[in-house]
């Protein structure tokens, strides 16, 4: 009977996530505020349904009470996040918020299935990070000095990376983490934030050649130190993010193409020089020839995805633990094996809507520093998703980066949550900007009205009408958006 429930649950999961994904795209097209709100509510409902069903399926296959307790704690946390965030910031971007909760939920589910202890740890860190993230939007709003100290970010980030490179703990061939007592963290994750701040602050100040060159030097140092630490995925991530930010800030195609050319050249040289790079590439082009060694991980990942096929094996029915470090770099394969290929594609699409939303927000902000920051985070996020999923399915060589919010890993989780919170801050800022423009218009209108009043006595009624406008604001907003675009 149990196996039947597991079997049938696969279909339910797929239907639910398909609905969720559909809503991600369709709600954005709707104009009526009530319909939009309804859409968000349905998304939350689906999130909790999947959560409930997944834990139900895991529970009936293990009958451990801890699982139930853990489920209730997660339910509480996710609910709290949704309620409190909206309470404090009523104008928050719901899609980004919903997707964050959804991805966290998927992460909890798959980690509980893979390793209960790790899931608990992930949960604790998530709870802390989410609490922290509540104040991030305020900081963004209030602290204007953030954009005035680029070198602080730049130098601090670089120092952190250097620290890892020299005293870091080696982990599967790359220096990634710093250990303090029994607490280890990956500074690269923190440097992601400072790096984007640094580049954004510099570019917002000036896009003169001299300044860009100086920024490039420091950014290149970041990348080189990462290459030196053998964190190729990290290096690639920083490199691409930098290129995109410079391109958007300067609008010079030459910079972008030049950078891209330099990157390709560097990659070719790296391929010739470093053995571990060649091995990575070999494990990509022909993993089955080195299945016992370098190709083991990727082939196990392919077995997992291929065996699960479209519908998946059902939760707890596959063998995702055969893949080395499945909780971190290959969590996508585990999801694809047990929940199925369709589910996995929906997950990719959900990540994609996050990315689109980030870029959208970036493009609508007027102030350069915030615009570039949002853009940088958007690129960072999008490219990281691309690297990890592409690596897991052998679309590109595996680079060993995590799937933000889903993969296990405290540092990655904290930086991802903070990143989402910063984007939310940016979004609120954009709303503020719009509000300001609105006020500006009102003032102008009032002035005009006054002028008219002086001329005509019958203008009284019009002025009253305008005064009533602020109350109507929220309902009018979507229409105005359209006007702008």
């Amino acid at each position, binding site marked *: *009977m149990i*196996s*039947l429930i597991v*079997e049938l649950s696969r279909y339910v999961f797929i239907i639910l996530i398909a609905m969720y994904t559909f809503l991600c795209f369709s709600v954005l097209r709707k104009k009526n505020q009530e319909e939009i709100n309804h859409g968000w509510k349905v998304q939350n409902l689906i999130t909790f349904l999947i959560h409930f069903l997944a834990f139900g399926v895991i529970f009936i296959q293990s009958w451990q009470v801890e699982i139930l307790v853990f489920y209730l704690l997660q339910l509480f946390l996710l609910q709290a996040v949704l309620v409190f965030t909206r309470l404090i910031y009523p104008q928050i971007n719901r899609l980004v918020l919903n997707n964050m909760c959804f991805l966290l939920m998927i992460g909890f589910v798959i980690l509980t299935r893979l390793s209960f202890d790790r899931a608990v740890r992930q949960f604790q860190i998530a709870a802390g990070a989410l609490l922290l993230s509540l104040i991030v939007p305020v900081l963004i709003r209030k602290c204007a000095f953030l954009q005035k100290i680029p070198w602080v970010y730049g130098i601090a980030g670089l120092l952190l990376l250097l620290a890892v490179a020299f005293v870091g703990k080696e982990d599967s061939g790359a220096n990634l983490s710093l250990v303090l007592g029994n607490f280890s963290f990956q500074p690269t994750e923190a440097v992601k934030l400072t790096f984007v701040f640094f580049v954004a602050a510099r570019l917002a100040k000036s896009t003169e050649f001299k300044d860009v060159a100086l920024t490039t030097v420091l950014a290149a140092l970041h990348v080189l130190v990462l290459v030196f630490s053998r964190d190729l995925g990290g290096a690639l991530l920083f490199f691409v993010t930098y290129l995109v930010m410079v391109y958007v800030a300067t609008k010079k195609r030459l910079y972008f193409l030049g950078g891209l050319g330099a990157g390709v050249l560097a990659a070719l040289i790296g391929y010739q020089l470093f053995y571990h790079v060649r091995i990575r590439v070999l494990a990509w082009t022909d993993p*089955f020839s080195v*299945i016992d060694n370098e190709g083991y991980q990727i*082939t*196990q990942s*392919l*077995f*997992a*995805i*291929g*065996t699960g*096929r*479209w519908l998946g094996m059902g939760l707890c029915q*596959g*063998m995702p633990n*055969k893949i080395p470090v499945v909780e971190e770099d290959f969590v996508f394969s585990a999801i694809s094996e047990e929940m199925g*290929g369709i589910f*996995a*594609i929906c997950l*990719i*699409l959900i990540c*994609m809507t996050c*990315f*689109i939303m980030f870029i959208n927000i970036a493009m609508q902000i007027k102030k350069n520093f915030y615009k570039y920051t949002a853009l940088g985070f958007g*690129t960072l996020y*999008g*490219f990281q998703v*691309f690297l990890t*999923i*592409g690596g897991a*399915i*052998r*679309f590109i060589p595996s680079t060993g980066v995590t799937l933000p919010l889903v993969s296990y890993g405290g540092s990655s989780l904290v930086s991802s949550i903070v990143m989402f919170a910063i984007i939310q801050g940016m979004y609120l800022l954009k709303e503020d900007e719009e509000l300001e423009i609105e006020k500006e218009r009102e003032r102008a209108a009032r002035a005009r009205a006054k002028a008219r009043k002086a001329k005509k006595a019958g203008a009284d009624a019009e002025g009253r009408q305008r005064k009533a406008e602020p109350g109507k604001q929220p309902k009018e907003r979507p229409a105005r958006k359209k006007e702008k675009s």
Partner: protein
Amino acid sequence: MFIGLFTLMIGYFVYFEAVLSPDVINNPYNARQEAFAERVIRGSILAEDGTVLAETQVAEDGTEMRVYPYGNVFAHVVGYSTRGRTGIENLANFTLLTSDVSTIDQIRNDIHEQKDQGNSVVTTLNVDLQQTAYSALGKNRGAVVVLEVETGKVLAMVSKPDFDPGSINEDWDRLTAEDDTDSALYNRAAQGLYPPGSTFKIITLLEYMRENPDYADFSFRCRGSLTEGNYTINCYGGTAHGQENLTEAFAKSCNSAFASIGLSLDETEFASTCDSLLFNSDLPFDLTYSKSSFTLADGATPAERMMTAIGQGETVVSPLHMAMIVSSIANGGVLMEPYVLDHVENYKGGVVDTYSPTRYGTLMSGEEAAALTEYMKAVVEDGTGRKLNDLGFSVAGKTGTAEYSNDKSKSHAWFVGFSDTGDTDIAVCVLVEEKGSGSEYAVPIARQIFAEWYTQKTFAW
């Protein structure tokens, strides 16, 4: 741009799941296969007409036994699955352990705590042809491969000595004993590599035709041997064939004539022709096989060149590969990839998946194939393959007697050829180890196979 990357990635993911995954997951390193056996009764392997070649029988107490009704006859091609896996048992492992039963049956099985019945694979193998080949080979060591020319279907694949896959566990120690000289587990049809002997003259002839557009004018006076430098090539039995044209030299398998042709050929061109015929490269075949090899470097000595031309040099080839080459000649130069799995059925006989014939490519032009066919027909009409000329239909072929040691009395007997009726023709390759001449030992076996095929064909009408 990023959206484009994402779209490409999703596209690749879909491609992987839809197209690549079945091949990828059927890998011994994929531990998930064993887990499947816990839930599914291994499916059956059937011949093309549905005859059971392997099935799992479940006793009252739930113990499962893999049964092979034909015992040794299909041993190598069907393989075994209880001591590692070989043959089709390995190739189709995943399919056999996958169950496509309806949800209702699944629920019923679930309630009764029974396993689901796995899917069956229907092969391309023809029971009567296989049995004919098996008994025709008798107690000899050797191999037989029969392919359907137009499709590449493997109709029969026999290797001897053989074993019983049903009792593989009991016989294992004997089969793998250190002093064992039989190598019965070895599939000689695909894995065995032998010097091709005179069957290789087909390829030498092809190369000669390519290098000499006026090849039809060839003439040679055979004195029973040919000496170049200090090396002498003898004709079989020392027979002097006298004045002969190309057709006669080929039909009588004149070593002296072909050794002289070999001396005239360009080594590099010859090597590249062989490479294009899949020597030194992977074959498009899913079961375990060995790669054939051909080496003839620039500046090879006259002795090496003469030996190579008559198939006695360093060249080694598998019976399967020879069958593929002649099947492409029969098919106008186009090679069809040989395959053993025709389709997959669920336990109620509903078709789940079908494999269709795949065109590998063109090995030679249509004219070349037609010319070679004429030469090969002459072999049967009035040459070393004479014993096949009264079958009632046209057969093209080439015999071979491959010496593999200094003991000239012992040699491998070869026959390769095909029926030339223009309607679902077959290509046949027979190899008998350590027996003697091809015309004496291999041709009679081929004759029985052609006769059986013809009976089936006329009966079907």
